[in-house]
Protein backbone atom coordinates (compact mmCIF):
# COMPACT_ATOMS: atom_id res chain seq x y z
CA UNK A 1 0.00 0.00 0.00
CA UNK A 2 1.37 3.38 -0.98
CA UNK A 3 1.84 5.84 1.89
CA UNK A 4 -0.39 8.29 -0.01
CA UNK A 5 -3.26 5.81 0.24
CA UNK A 6 -2.78 5.32 3.95
CA UNK A 7 -2.72 9.11 4.37
CA UNK A 8 -5.92 9.49 2.36
CA UNK A 9 -7.64 6.75 4.35
CA UNK A 10 -6.64 8.33 7.66
CA UNK A 11 -7.67 11.79 6.43
CA UNK A 12 -11.09 10.46 5.45
CA UNK A 13 -11.54 9.00 8.91
CA UNK A 14 -10.43 12.19 10.65
CA UNK A 15 -12.89 14.19 8.54
CA UNK A 16 -15.72 11.68 9.10
CA UNK A 17 -16.01 10.70 5.46
CA UNK A 18 -16.84 7.17 4.31
CA UNK A 19 -14.10 5.44 2.30
CA UNK A 20 -13.28 1.97 1.05
CA UNK A 21 -9.77 0.70 0.47
CA UNK A 22 -9.76 -1.83 -2.38
CA UNK A 23 -6.88 -4.29 -2.05
CA UNK A 24 -5.84 -6.95 -4.56
CA UNK A 25 -4.88 -9.96 -2.46
CA UNK A 26 -2.57 -11.12 -5.24
CA UNK A 27 -0.34 -8.15 -4.59
CA UNK A 28 -1.64 -5.67 -7.16
CA UNK A 29 -1.94 -1.93 -6.59
CA UNK A 30 -4.54 -0.88 -4.00
CA UNK A 31 -6.89 2.07 -4.47
CA UNK A 32 -9.23 4.19 -2.37
CA UNK A 33 -12.88 4.71 -3.28
CA UNK A 34 -14.81 7.56 -1.67
CA UNK A 35 -18.43 8.58 -2.01
CA UNK A 36 -17.27 11.13 -4.57
CA UNK A 37 -15.70 8.47 -6.80
CA UNK A 38 -18.11 5.60 -6.13
CA UNK A 39 -20.54 6.17 -9.01
CA UNK A 40 -19.41 4.21 -12.04
CA UNK A 41 -16.73 2.27 -10.18
CA UNK A 42 -16.37 -1.30 -11.53
CA UNK A 43 -17.08 -2.54 -8.00
CA UNK A 44 -19.82 0.01 -7.28
CA UNK A 45 -22.44 -2.55 -6.20
CA UNK A 46 -20.32 -4.59 -3.77
CA UNK A 47 -18.82 -1.39 -2.38
CA UNK A 48 -22.27 0.08 -1.77
CA UNK A 49 -23.32 -3.11 -0.03
CA UNK A 50 -20.17 -3.04 2.09
CA UNK A 51 -20.80 0.59 3.06
CA UNK A 52 -24.35 -0.26 4.10
CA UNK A 53 -23.27 -3.14 6.31
CA UNK A 54 -20.15 -1.36 7.51
CA UNK A 55 -18.29 -4.66 7.16
CA UNK A 56 -14.95 -5.25 5.54
CA UNK A 57 -14.55 -8.41 3.46
CA UNK A 58 -13.52 -10.18 0.29
CA UNK A 59 -15.77 -9.46 -2.70
CA UNK A 60 -17.45 -12.78 -3.43
CA UNK A 61 -15.86 -14.75 -6.22
CA UNK A 62 -12.81 -12.47 -6.39
CA UNK A 63 -9.43 -11.95 -4.79
CA UNK A 64 -10.30 -8.36 -3.86
CA UNK A 65 -10.57 -7.22 -0.27
CA UNK A 66 -12.58 -4.19 0.80
CA UNK A 67 -11.50 -2.38 3.95
CA UNK A 68 -14.63 -0.43 4.83
CA UNK A 69 -14.41 2.73 6.80
CA UNK A 70 -17.67 4.32 7.88
CA UNK A 71 -17.53 7.05 10.52
CA UNK A 72 -19.05 6.10 13.85
CA UNK A 73 -22.60 7.45 13.94
CA UNK A 74 -23.41 10.34 16.23
CA UNK A 75 -26.74 11.00 17.87
CA UNK A 76 -28.22 14.35 18.80
CA UNK A 77 -31.41 14.49 20.85
CA UNK A 78 -33.33 17.75 21.11
CA UNK A 79 -35.24 17.69 24.37
CA UNK A 80 -34.28 16.54 27.84
CA UNK A 81 -37.63 14.81 28.18
CA UNK A 82 -38.89 11.56 29.65
CA UNK A 83 -38.41 9.64 26.39
CA UNK A 84 -34.81 10.88 26.23
CA UNK A 85 -34.14 9.44 29.68
CA UNK A 86 -35.17 6.02 28.43
CA UNK A 87 -33.48 6.47 25.06
CA UNK A 88 -29.98 7.39 26.27
CA UNK A 89 -29.01 4.06 27.88
CA UNK A 90 -30.53 2.08 24.99
CA UNK A 91 -28.71 4.21 22.42
CA UNK A 92 -25.47 3.54 24.27
CA UNK A 93 -26.00 -0.20 23.96
CA UNK A 94 -26.27 0.32 20.22
CA UNK A 95 -22.91 2.10 20.23
CA UNK A 96 -24.09 5.71 20.08
CA UNK A 97 -22.97 8.41 22.48
CA UNK A 98 -26.02 10.68 22.53
CA UNK A 99 -25.79 14.41 23.18
CA UNK A 100 -28.87 16.18 24.53
CA UNK A 101 -29.78 19.77 23.75
CA UNK A 102 -32.53 21.57 25.64
CA UNK A 103 -32.50 25.25 26.62
CA UNK A 104 -35.06 24.65 29.37
CA UNK A 105 -32.88 24.39 32.44
CA UNK A 106 -35.66 22.76 34.45
CA UNK A 107 -35.47 19.78 32.07
CA UNK A 108 -31.77 19.73 31.27
CA UNK A 109 -30.45 18.82 34.69
CA UNK A 110 -27.58 16.47 35.53
CA UNK A 111 -29.88 14.80 38.08
CA UNK A 112 -32.20 13.72 35.30
CA UNK A 113 -29.33 12.89 32.95
CA UNK A 114 -26.31 11.69 34.88
CA UNK A 115 -23.16 11.12 32.80
CA UNK A 116 -24.72 12.49 29.60
CA UNK A 117 -23.38 15.38 27.54
CA UNK A 118 -26.12 17.90 28.15
CA UNK A 119 -26.21 21.33 26.54
CA UNK A 120 -28.73 23.64 28.25
CA UNK A 121 -28.66 26.02 25.28
CA UNK A 122 -30.82 26.97 22.32
CA UNK A 123 -30.21 24.86 19.21
CA UNK A 124 -28.76 27.82 17.28
CA UNK A 125 -26.05 28.11 19.90
CA UNK A 126 -25.50 24.44 20.72
CA UNK A 127 -25.72 22.70 17.33
CA UNK A 128 -22.87 24.38 15.45
CA UNK A 129 -20.53 23.16 18.19
CA UNK A 130 -21.67 19.56 17.73
CA UNK A 131 -20.55 19.35 14.09
CA UNK A 132 -23.71 17.57 13.05
CA UNK A 133 -23.12 15.69 9.77
CA UNK A 134 -24.56 13.05 7.45
CA UNK A 135 -23.53 10.30 9.88
CA UNK A 136 -25.68 11.80 12.64
CA UNK A 137 -29.06 10.58 13.86
CA UNK A 138 -31.12 13.64 14.74
CA UNK A 139 -34.06 13.23 17.08
CA UNK A 140 -36.33 16.15 18.02
CA UNK A 141 -38.50 15.45 21.05
CA UNK A 142 -39.44 18.74 22.73
CA UNK A 143 -42.82 19.24 21.03
CA UNK A 144 -41.99 22.94 21.21
CA UNK A 145 -41.68 24.68 17.82
CA UNK A 146 -39.39 27.35 19.26
CA UNK A 147 -36.86 24.59 20.03
CA UNK A 148 -37.55 21.81 17.52
CA UNK A 149 -37.98 23.97 14.38
CA UNK A 150 -34.56 25.68 14.30
CA UNK A 151 -32.99 22.35 15.23
CA UNK A 152 -34.69 20.58 12.32
CA UNK A 153 -33.59 23.30 9.90
CA UNK A 154 -30.02 22.65 11.03
CA UNK A 155 -30.47 18.90 10.54
CA UNK A 156 -31.67 19.49 6.95
CA UNK A 157 -28.63 21.62 6.23
CA UNK A 158 -26.31 18.88 7.48
CA UNK A 159 -28.15 16.05 5.65
CA UNK A 160 -28.40 13.82 8.71
CA UNK A 161 -29.04 10.18 7.81
CA UNK A 162 -31.98 10.11 10.19
CA UNK A 163 -34.24 13.01 11.14
CA UNK A 164 -37.20 12.26 13.37
CA UNK A 165 -39.59 14.53 15.24
CA UNK A 166 -42.13 13.73 17.93
CA UNK A 167 -45.72 14.73 17.30
CA UNK A 168 -49.02 13.45 15.98
CA UNK A 169 -49.95 13.68 12.30
CA UNK A 170 -51.83 16.88 13.06
CA UNK A 171 -48.91 18.42 14.96
CA UNK A 172 -46.63 17.37 12.14
CA UNK A 173 -48.83 18.92 9.44
CA UNK A 174 -48.51 22.25 11.25
CA UNK A 175 -44.77 21.72 11.55
CA UNK A 176 -44.49 21.09 7.82
CA UNK A 177 -46.27 24.40 7.17
CA UNK A 178 -44.01 26.31 9.54
CA UNK A 179 -40.78 24.81 8.20
CA UNK A 180 -41.82 25.37 4.60
CA UNK A 181 -42.65 28.96 5.54
CA UNK A 182 -39.12 29.28 6.87
CA UNK A 183 -37.70 28.28 3.52
CA UNK A 184 -37.16 24.53 3.94
CA UNK A 185 -37.55 22.61 0.68
CA UNK A 186 -40.39 20.07 0.36
CA UNK A 187 -37.75 17.33 -0.10
CA UNK A 188 -36.05 18.29 3.16
CA UNK A 189 -39.31 18.46 5.09
CA UNK A 190 -40.37 15.10 3.65
CA UNK A 191 -37.26 13.53 5.20
CA UNK A 192 -38.65 13.99 8.72
CA UNK A 193 -39.85 10.74 10.21
CA UNK A 194 -43.15 11.71 11.83
CA UNK A 195 -44.85 10.37 13.75
CA UNK A 196 -41.42 9.35 14.98
CA UNK A 197 -40.42 5.70 15.33
CA UNK A 198 -41.53 2.44 13.78
CA UNK A 199 -45.24 1.72 14.24
CA UNK A 200 -45.11 -0.92 16.96
CA UNK A 201 -47.89 0.49 19.11
CA UNK A 202 -45.43 1.99 21.59
CA UNK A 203 -47.01 3.73 24.57
CA UNK A 204 -44.52 4.12 27.42
CA UNK A 205 -41.45 6.36 27.06
CA UNK A 206 -39.24 3.28 26.96
CA UNK A 207 -41.32 1.67 24.23
CA UNK A 208 -41.25 4.88 22.21
CA UNK A 209 -37.48 4.93 22.64
CA UNK A 210 -37.33 1.38 21.26
CA UNK A 211 -39.42 2.34 18.24
CA UNK A 212 -37.24 5.40 17.56
CA UNK A 213 -33.99 3.45 17.88
CA UNK A 214 -35.35 0.69 15.64
CA UNK A 215 -36.11 3.32 13.00
CA UNK A 216 -32.65 4.86 13.41
CA UNK A 217 -31.09 1.41 13.02
CA UNK A 218 -33.11 0.79 9.88
CA UNK A 219 -31.98 4.12 8.41
CA UNK A 220 -28.36 3.39 9.29
CA UNK A 221 -28.27 -0.17 7.99
CA UNK A 222 -30.49 0.20 4.95
CA UNK A 223 -29.97 3.73 3.85
CA UNK A 224 -26.47 4.99 4.52
CA UNK A 225 -25.05 4.06 1.10
Amino acid sequence: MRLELLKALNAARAERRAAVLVTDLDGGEARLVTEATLAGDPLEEPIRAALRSGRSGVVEGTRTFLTVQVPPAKMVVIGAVHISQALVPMARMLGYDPVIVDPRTAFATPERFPDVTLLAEWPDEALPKLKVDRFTAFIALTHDPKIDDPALLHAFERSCFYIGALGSRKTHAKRVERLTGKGASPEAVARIKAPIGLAIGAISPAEIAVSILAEVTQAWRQGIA
Partner: protein
Amino acid sequence: MISTDDDILTTAEAWAKAGKGVAVATVVETWGSAPRPIGSHLVIDEGGTFLGSVSGGCVEGEVVTEALDVIGSGKAKLLEFGVADETAWRAGLSCGGRIAVYVEKVG
Protein backbone atom coordinates in the same frame (compact mmCIF):
# COMPACT_ATOMS: atom_id res chain seq x y z
CA MET B 1 -19.30 2.38 16.32
CA ILE B 2 -17.81 0.77 13.21
CA SER B 3 -14.36 2.24 12.64
CA THR B 4 -12.28 0.85 15.45
CA ASP B 5 -8.75 0.86 14.13
CA ASP B 6 -8.23 4.62 14.20
CA ASP B 7 -5.08 4.85 16.25
CA ILE B 8 -3.55 1.83 14.59
CA LEU B 9 -3.55 3.14 11.03
CA THR B 10 -2.70 6.65 12.19
CA THR B 11 0.31 5.22 13.98
CA ALA B 12 1.35 3.32 10.86
CA GLU B 13 1.24 6.58 8.91
CA ALA B 14 3.31 8.36 11.58
CA TRP B 15 5.92 5.58 11.56
CA ALA B 16 6.17 5.64 7.78
CA LYS B 17 6.47 9.44 7.73
CA ALA B 18 9.28 9.14 10.29
CA GLY B 19 11.14 7.09 7.71
CA LYS B 20 10.63 3.67 9.25
CA GLY B 21 9.84 0.55 7.27
CA VAL B 22 6.23 -0.31 8.08
CA ALA B 23 3.87 -3.18 7.29
CA VAL B 24 0.11 -3.37 7.74
CA ALA B 25 -1.47 -6.76 8.48
CA THR B 26 -5.22 -7.12 7.93
CA VAL B 27 -7.56 -9.99 8.76
CA VAL B 28 -9.15 -10.64 5.36
CA GLU B 29 -11.01 -13.87 6.01
CA THR B 30 -12.16 -15.88 9.00
CA TRP B 31 -13.72 -19.30 9.31
CA GLY B 32 -15.32 -20.69 12.46
CA SER B 33 -14.79 -18.88 15.70
CA ALA B 34 -12.10 -16.32 15.01
CA PRO B 35 -11.05 -14.01 17.81
CA ARG B 36 -10.86 -10.80 15.79
CA PRO B 37 -13.27 -9.66 13.07
CA ILE B 38 -12.44 -9.25 9.39
CA GLY B 39 -10.82 -5.89 8.80
CA SER B 40 -8.85 -5.89 12.07
CA HIS B 41 -5.36 -4.47 11.71
CA LEU B 42 -1.94 -5.05 13.17
CA VAL B 43 0.80 -2.62 12.19
CA ILE B 44 4.47 -3.44 12.52
CA ASP B 45 7.62 -1.34 12.14
CA GLU B 46 11.05 -2.51 11.03
CA GLY B 47 12.19 -2.82 14.63
CA GLY B 48 9.38 -5.27 15.43
CA THR B 49 7.30 -2.74 17.37
CA PHE B 50 3.63 -3.44 16.75
CA LEU B 51 0.20 -2.06 17.53
CA GLY B 52 -3.25 -3.57 17.12
CA SER B 53 -4.27 -7.17 16.87
CA VAL B 54 -5.32 -9.78 14.34
CA SER B 55 -6.08 -12.62 16.72
CA GLY B 56 -6.15 -11.36 20.26
CA GLY B 57 -2.61 -12.55 20.85
CA CYS B 58 -2.53 -16.07 19.38
CA VAL B 59 -0.61 -15.57 16.15
CA GLU B 60 0.75 -12.05 16.52
CA GLY B 61 4.30 -13.31 16.96
CA GLU B 62 4.22 -15.17 13.65
CA VAL B 63 2.60 -12.24 11.87
CA VAL B 64 5.28 -9.87 13.17
CA THR B 65 8.03 -12.22 11.96
CA GLU B 66 6.43 -12.44 8.51
CA ALA B 67 5.89 -8.67 8.48
CA LEU B 68 9.61 -8.05 9.00
CA ASP B 69 10.21 -10.21 5.95
CA VAL B 70 7.60 -8.23 3.98
CA ILE B 71 9.20 -4.94 5.02
CA GLY B 72 12.55 -6.29 3.80
CA SER B 73 11.34 -7.67 0.47
CA GLY B 74 8.51 -5.22 -0.27
CA LYS B 75 6.46 -8.21 -1.42
CA ALA B 76 3.00 -8.68 0.14
CA LYS B 77 2.03 -12.03 1.68
CA LEU B 78 -1.21 -13.79 2.42
CA LEU B 79 -0.88 -15.86 5.58
CA GLU B 80 -3.28 -18.49 6.82
CA PHE B 81 -3.56 -19.74 10.36
CA GLY B 82 -5.84 -22.48 11.55
CA VAL B 83 -6.23 -25.85 13.15
CA ALA B 84 -5.06 -27.64 10.01
CA ASP B 85 -1.91 -25.58 9.90
CA GLU B 86 1.24 -26.70 11.67
CA THR B 87 2.39 -23.12 12.20
CA ALA B 88 -0.89 -22.12 13.73
CA TRP B 89 -0.71 -24.96 16.20
CA ARG B 90 2.70 -23.77 17.16
CA ALA B 91 1.47 -20.18 17.33
CA GLY B 92 -1.57 -21.44 19.16
CA LEU B 93 -4.83 -20.28 17.63
CA SER B 94 -6.58 -21.87 20.55
CA CYS B 95 -10.12 -20.96 19.55
CA GLY B 96 -10.11 -23.55 16.78
CA GLY B 97 -10.96 -21.05 14.07
CA ARG B 98 -9.02 -20.19 10.96
CA ILE B 99 -7.95 -16.77 9.75
CA ALA B 100 -6.29 -15.33 6.67
CA VAL B 101 -4.07 -12.30 7.18
CA TYR B 102 -2.81 -10.08 4.37
CA VAL B 103 0.51 -8.42 5.13
CA GLU B 104 1.75 -5.56 2.97
CA LYS B 105 4.43 -2.96 3.14
CA VAL B 106 3.56 0.73 3.35
CA GLY B 107 5.34 2.90 0.80
